[in-house]
């Protein structure tokens, strides 16, 4: 317990957390600090490019692990499954409508790549290795949850009698989402070009990575803070409880999956983090197209304003401590 606290504290005063906090505070204080949209999108392209490539290069270096396929499968199953748990929890804890609850549930089945990146950088600081293909697992978990959510709505008769059928082309649109394509593509290129490729672009994707992450989290803090400030009214206690309880529940399932797969300690932490995190890029876009009746303020506030900061500050250290205790690593 002492270890967790120390770890949490150390984590709390790392530059990336502090820059997130700076953004959050600036937004609450109504500072006009802001990152241009194009720059924020450029940084997110950089992060996907770098994390994907490094994952692929690491797979190339260590050989294809026997567990790769099973891990992908486990990720897909988790992503399908988690929305049902989230949906049940929401219907118990909150008064959300079926459509709103399903939309929120989709976000928690999917993943947040920045939370993943933050966890992997905590692992590096702690000197823990992890399976390079976890990046591919992350990509595999982005989309399935969306289908579960649409099924949940269809079962309930669809939004306002619109039926819940999926518009043709939507599935393709979800799977070819820009961030999935870049992440998977960079992973593949990293795997193909291996150590040789990595050596050519290392000084672009490795050394400046932490610095870019700091600036990116500053922006995330600004966005989360602004969102939270403007939708304060929405956050009834039930939602708040859900925003903290659901990541812990997800992490527990991720732990189970990681142990069954026999992942390294680092790999288990990442599996927990993925399950615990909530999407705020791919899923919101899909929801606007497929379930426009769902209120975006609810799911964005929960995912970005509650669960993301929770994972960043307390969640990741907890997952690390638990994984170390359980695996003995």
């Amino acid at each position, binding site marked *: 317990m002492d270890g967790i606290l120390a770890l949490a504290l150390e984590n709390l005063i790392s530059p990336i957390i502090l820059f997130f906090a700076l953004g959050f505070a600036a*937004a609450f204080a109504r500072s006009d600090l*802001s*990152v*241009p*949209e194009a720059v*924020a999108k450029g940084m*997110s392209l950089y992060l996907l490019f770098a994390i994907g490539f490094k994952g692929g290069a690491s797979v190339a270096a260590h050989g294809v692990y026997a567990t790769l396929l099973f891990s992908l499968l486990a990720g897909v199953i988790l992503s399908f499954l988690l929305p049902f748990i989230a949906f049940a929890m929401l219907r118990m804890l909150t008064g959300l409508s079926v459509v709103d609850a399903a939309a929120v549930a989709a976000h928690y089945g999917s993943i947040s790549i920045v939370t993943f990146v933050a966890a992997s950088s905590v692992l590096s600081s702690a000197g823990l290795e992890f399976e390079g293909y976890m990046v591919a697992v992350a990509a595999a978990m982005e989309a399935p949850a969306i289908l579960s959510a649409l099924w949940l709505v269809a079962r309930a008769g669809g*939004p306002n009698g*619109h039926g819940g059928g999926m518009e043709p082309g939507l599935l393709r649109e979800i799977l070819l989402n820009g961030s999935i394509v870049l992440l998977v593509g960079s992973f593949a290129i990293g795997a193909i070009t291996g150590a040789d490729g990595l050596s050519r672009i290392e000084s672009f994707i490795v050394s400046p990575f932490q610095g870019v992450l700091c600036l990116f989290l500053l*922006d*995330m803090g*600004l*966005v989360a803070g*602004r969102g939270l400030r*403007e*939708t304060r009214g929405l956050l009834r206690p039930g939602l708040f409880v859900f925003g903290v309880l659901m990541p812990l529940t997800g992490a527990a399932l991720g732990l189970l999956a990681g142990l069954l797969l026999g992942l390294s300690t680092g790999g288990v932490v990442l599996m927990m983090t993925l399950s615990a995190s909530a999407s*705020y*890029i791919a899923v*919101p*876009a899909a*929801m*606007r*197209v497929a379930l*426009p*009746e769902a*209120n*975006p*303020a609810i799911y*964005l506030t929960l995912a*970005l304003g509650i669960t993301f900061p929770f994972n960043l500050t307390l969640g990741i250290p907890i997952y690390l401590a638990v994984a170390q205790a359980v695996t003995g690593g």
Partner: protein
Amino acid sequence: MQTHKAKRVEITIEAVMERRLSEALEKAGVKGFTILPVLGGSGRSGRWSREGQVSRASGMIAVVCIVHPNRLDPLLEAAFAVVDRHIGVVSVTDCDVVRADRF
């Protein structure tokens, strides 16, 4: 200069719906349109601003479409089929254009 009557339709709609709207307009026989970026706005669903969107999800665009008055109704029907379930605003203004055959 010799001018002709036309209609200027302005559709403010979520950016994620751009492809669907432009396909619908093309199907409705609209010969051209222009897409303008939107920085932010306010409406029943509150205040939003593009700076501070991590997500493609919540941005909006404005589509301006100049059409011959005869084509207004099919255009509006096509647009509303898309806008209907979505956040958005449609307004129509009278205008004059020079080369009528283009609209």
